[in-house]
């Protein structure tokens, strides 16, 4: 049996008789489960993979676990004097260090694997839909990422243990080096320069785990972890060897050891720099939630846009967004190929390395950190500061591939409406920017003067009017609607500045909501997950929107009255607690194609705050998609946003009670059971002895 294997087995054997490991394991399970439950709730409805959420819930706790498992690996041997017996045996120090490392690593991975099984079994029992579409291999990349990271953490823990005689000191040093220092630095960077988040993206350690869990495998990251683990092991073996370096005669050897370790770090730094510079990324061929899926709207756009588009990622390769952007663009290219539409060519231009290409882009007026979409002589670019999501990129493709067409969305003003130009939490600048990305122009509409609703108006938005519309204004709106106008009304009260009266004439009667048994997150909001089969709402099935104290709607007397072109049809869009909280009416829909009558369409949503900046930033849900679908439907665009399948979105469907049950099982009951079993095992062993 090789010395490495012997030491590995001994390390595992020692671990079984330590109470500290019972505390560490139970603490890890409790912490990881709590973090997992928190992440599940905060990312509910978001376009994020369950595997990635699970991985980033476990990743921050692994350094602590490895530190606690590894703290005794050498400290205990040194304290007890057994290190002399080990070092007088015919074994190389590196074999001993490697054996110890493998023992600590094995325990760390075992703990992660057990937590994986328990958390997913609990989740499968309480939220079967979340796992129903998951591929059996979906969690593999995330687990590989955790294995890579925990290898490094374990090696550093063994190294620290060899340096310190006291286990607690070794654990503190490891946690400080692996967890407190990088996270503290990260927080300091953000506190010092909040724009750091834009430059660096997420916390690098978490971001690397997240990327890999999402199926983006970066050769630079993998090589970096392997190199750092090797260097930490080298340093650990030198630290073990230095135990014998006492006395004056060893001074030279001590110095040469220090130089060797320092040089190894320098060499590792250079190797990592080279690996990151030559970074190659590939998608893990796992299918299922590991890959990106695109909405029907994006697929439509890619299918209708023919020819060839060049997409250039104009950003530094060191940028944290480089990897996810590359992953996303490659997925976009594959999707375009699969629908047989436009061909997407990808290019990467690093502003600091590809100077010629960078100069060309800058001359064209393109800023750094952007994506450039080019087709022939047409070009458009989007700044990564504004995001690079599916909808934004699809819109960019639309702009360069389709004939230019700009529609205007008019927002009424003067009645206390929310402004599309306001950037605060109560403003709507975010959703307005989304509309601009989709090719709309946002214009303020003041109906008090002589102005009618302009002829280029795609739709009018009344976003939470508080004061009365004058008769003149109401008349102008009515006139616009009678000519086939489109109106989107977001209500913050039943009366809503007199708009209610006008809506009643068009088939919609706002009423105080009497909701029963609704699901809620804060007590005042309402989670809406029941969507009708209407074109606006059907694609959102399986996702949810959150409304704050919504107004409900009933069909008024005008609804379903009239014949032919004058018939007004009322359709509920979304219901919660038995009440319709969003509705649409259409006049002239069944008039016949040959009459060429533009139907009047009105959508009413029982809340105005659901697309305010603060609400959109706070939670990941389908609010944005719902609003954009309303706009698309009203403006006559056929391609609406699809919220995606369950595999695309994180929809647990768990209510508060189930969440509490999940937390109780995974974060309290299971860790307590593990703690009890491990303590009994250790006590049993000691009693037998």
């Amino acid at each position: 049996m090789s010395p490495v294997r012997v030491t590995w087995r001994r390390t595992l054997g020692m671990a079984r008789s330590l109470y500290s490991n019972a505390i560490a394991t139970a603490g890890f399970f409790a912490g990881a489960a709590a973090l997992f439950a928190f992440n599940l709730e905060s990312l509910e409805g978001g376009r994020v993979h369950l595997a990635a959420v699970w991985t980033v819930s476990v990743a921050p706790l692994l350094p602590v676990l490895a530190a606690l498992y590894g703290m005794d690996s050498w400290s205990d041997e040194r304290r007890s004097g057994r290190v002399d017996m080990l070092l007088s045996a015919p074994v190389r120090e590196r074999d001993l260090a490697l054996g110890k490392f493998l023992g600590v690593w094995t325990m760390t991975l075992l703990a992660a694997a057990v937590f994986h099984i328990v958390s997913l079994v609990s989740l499968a029992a309480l939220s079967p839909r979340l796992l129903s579409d998951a591929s059996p291999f979906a969690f593999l990349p995330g687990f590989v990422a955790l294995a890579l990271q925990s290898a490094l953490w374990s090696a550093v823990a063994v190294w620290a243990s060899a340096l310190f005689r006291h286990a607690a000191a070794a654990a503190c040093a490891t946690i400080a080096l692996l967890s407190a220092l990088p996270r503290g630095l990260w927080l300091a960077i953000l506190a010092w320069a909040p724009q750091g988040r834009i430059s660096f993206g997420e916390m690098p350690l978490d971001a690397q785990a997240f990327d890999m869990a999402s199926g983006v495998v970066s050769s630079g990251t993998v090589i970096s972890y392997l190199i750092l683990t090797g260097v930490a092991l080298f340093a650990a073996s030198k630290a073990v060897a230095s135990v014998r370096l006492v006395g004056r005669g060893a001074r030279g050897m001590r110095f040469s050891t220090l130089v060797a370790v320092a040089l190894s770090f320098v060499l590792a730094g250079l190797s990592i720099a080279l690996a990151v510079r030559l970074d190659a990324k590939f998608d893990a061929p796992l299918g299922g939630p590991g890959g990106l899926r695109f909405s029907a709207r994006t697929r439509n756009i890619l299918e209708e846009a023919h020819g060839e588009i060049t997409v250039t990622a104009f950003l530094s390769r060191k940028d944290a967004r480089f990897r996810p952007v590359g992953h996303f663009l490659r997925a976009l290219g594959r999707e375009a190929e699969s629908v047989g539409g436009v061909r997407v060519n990808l290019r990467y231009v690093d502003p600091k390395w590809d100077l010629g290409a960078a100069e060309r882009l800058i001359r064209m007026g393109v800023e750094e950190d952007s994506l450039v979409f080019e087709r022939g002589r047409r070009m458009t670019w989007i700044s990564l500061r504004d995001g690079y999501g599916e909808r934004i990129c699809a819109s960019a493709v639309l702009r360069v591939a389709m004939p230019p067409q700009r529609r205007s969305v008019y927002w009424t003003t003067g009645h206390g409406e929310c402004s599309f130009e306001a950037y605060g939490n109560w403003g709507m600048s975010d959703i307005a920017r989304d509309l601009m990305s989709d090719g709309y122009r946002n214009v303020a509409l003041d109906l008090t003067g002589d102005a009618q609703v302009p002829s280029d108006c795609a739709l009018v938005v009344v976003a939470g009017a508080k004061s009365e519309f004058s008769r003149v204004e109401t008349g102008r709106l009515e006139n616009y609607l009678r000519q086939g106008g489109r109106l989107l009304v977001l209500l913050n009260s039943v009366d809503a500045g007199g708009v209610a009266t006008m809506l009643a004439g068009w088939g919609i009667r706002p009423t105080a909501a009497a909701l029963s048994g609704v699901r809620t997150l804060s007590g005042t909001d309402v989670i809406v997950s029941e969507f009708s089969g209407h074109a606006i709402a059907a694609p959102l099935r399986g996702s949810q929107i959150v409304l704050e104290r919504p107004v409900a709607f009933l069909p008024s007397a005008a609804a379903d009255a009239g014949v032919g072109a004058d018939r007004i049809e009322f359709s509920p869009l979304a219901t919660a607690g038995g009440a319709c909280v969003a509705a649409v009416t259409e006049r002239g829909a069944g008039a016949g194609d040959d009459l060429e009558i533009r139907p009047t369409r009105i959508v009413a949503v029982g809340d105005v705050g659901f697309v305010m900046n603060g609400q959109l930033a706070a939670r990941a849900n389908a609010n944005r998609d719902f609003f954009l679908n309303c706009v698309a439907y009203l403006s006559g665009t056929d391609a609406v946003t699809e919220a995606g399948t369950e595999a695309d979105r994180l929809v647990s469907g768990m209510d508060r009670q189930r969440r509490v049950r999940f937390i109780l099982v995974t974060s309290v009951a299971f860790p307590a059971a593990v703690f009890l079993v491990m303590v009994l095992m250790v006590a049993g062993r000691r009693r037998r002895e």
Partner: protein
Amino acid sequence: MFEVKNLAFTYRSRPVLRDVSFVVSPGETVCVVGANGAGKTTLLRILATLAVPDYGSVRMDGQDAFAHPIAYRRQLGYMQETPALYEDMTVRGYLEYRANLKGEPERRIRRRVGEAAEMCQVADLMKKPIRTLSAGLKKRVALADAVLLRPRLLLLDDFLAGLDAGLRSASGAILSSVAAFSSVIVTGHELPDLAKWATRFLVLRDGVVASTVQAAGADAAALVARVEKEISGGAK
């Protein structure tokens, strides 16, 4: 042939060993004696490659111990003053673990462990956890570990310390049987016991080999008296 030449060791600017040289022939049992702080344990730690000397050489059949440490340690058995064992293991488990660690082939381990246990009289303790053993029995287990692979050089630090008269006598018998295949270097203060089976005494004083006393053929009491005299300063 085991040869120590011009060995010197300084710890925190205090010279512990100065120009120590001696040779140990196969089958010889050399007792290194001296007052507390004379450098006995340090000498043994250097011979076990657990400390690096300032200068000087340690050679086994001409092969330098610090240039080829793994090959040297394969021929070495070392027992420290206070045995540090894995308390959670049984005696058999510990000895098998040590044999594995020392690279003994799997097929020979059971036999080696059995022989060492028999030799050190711990065969009937094999299933007992080490935690439950007395200090004297733990020393025997440590000795079994040291002789496990029949080393050519056995280093025993303060071998008889803390043992009662019965155990000291039994340990002496064990040592005599070990000497059949090993050169033994042992340190200690129990001169009457050591005199029974030592072939030579090396007296360390202030870090140097003050004198060498041959034990063969000498009267035990006279030998002890002479060694004691050498330890305490010779002329005094």
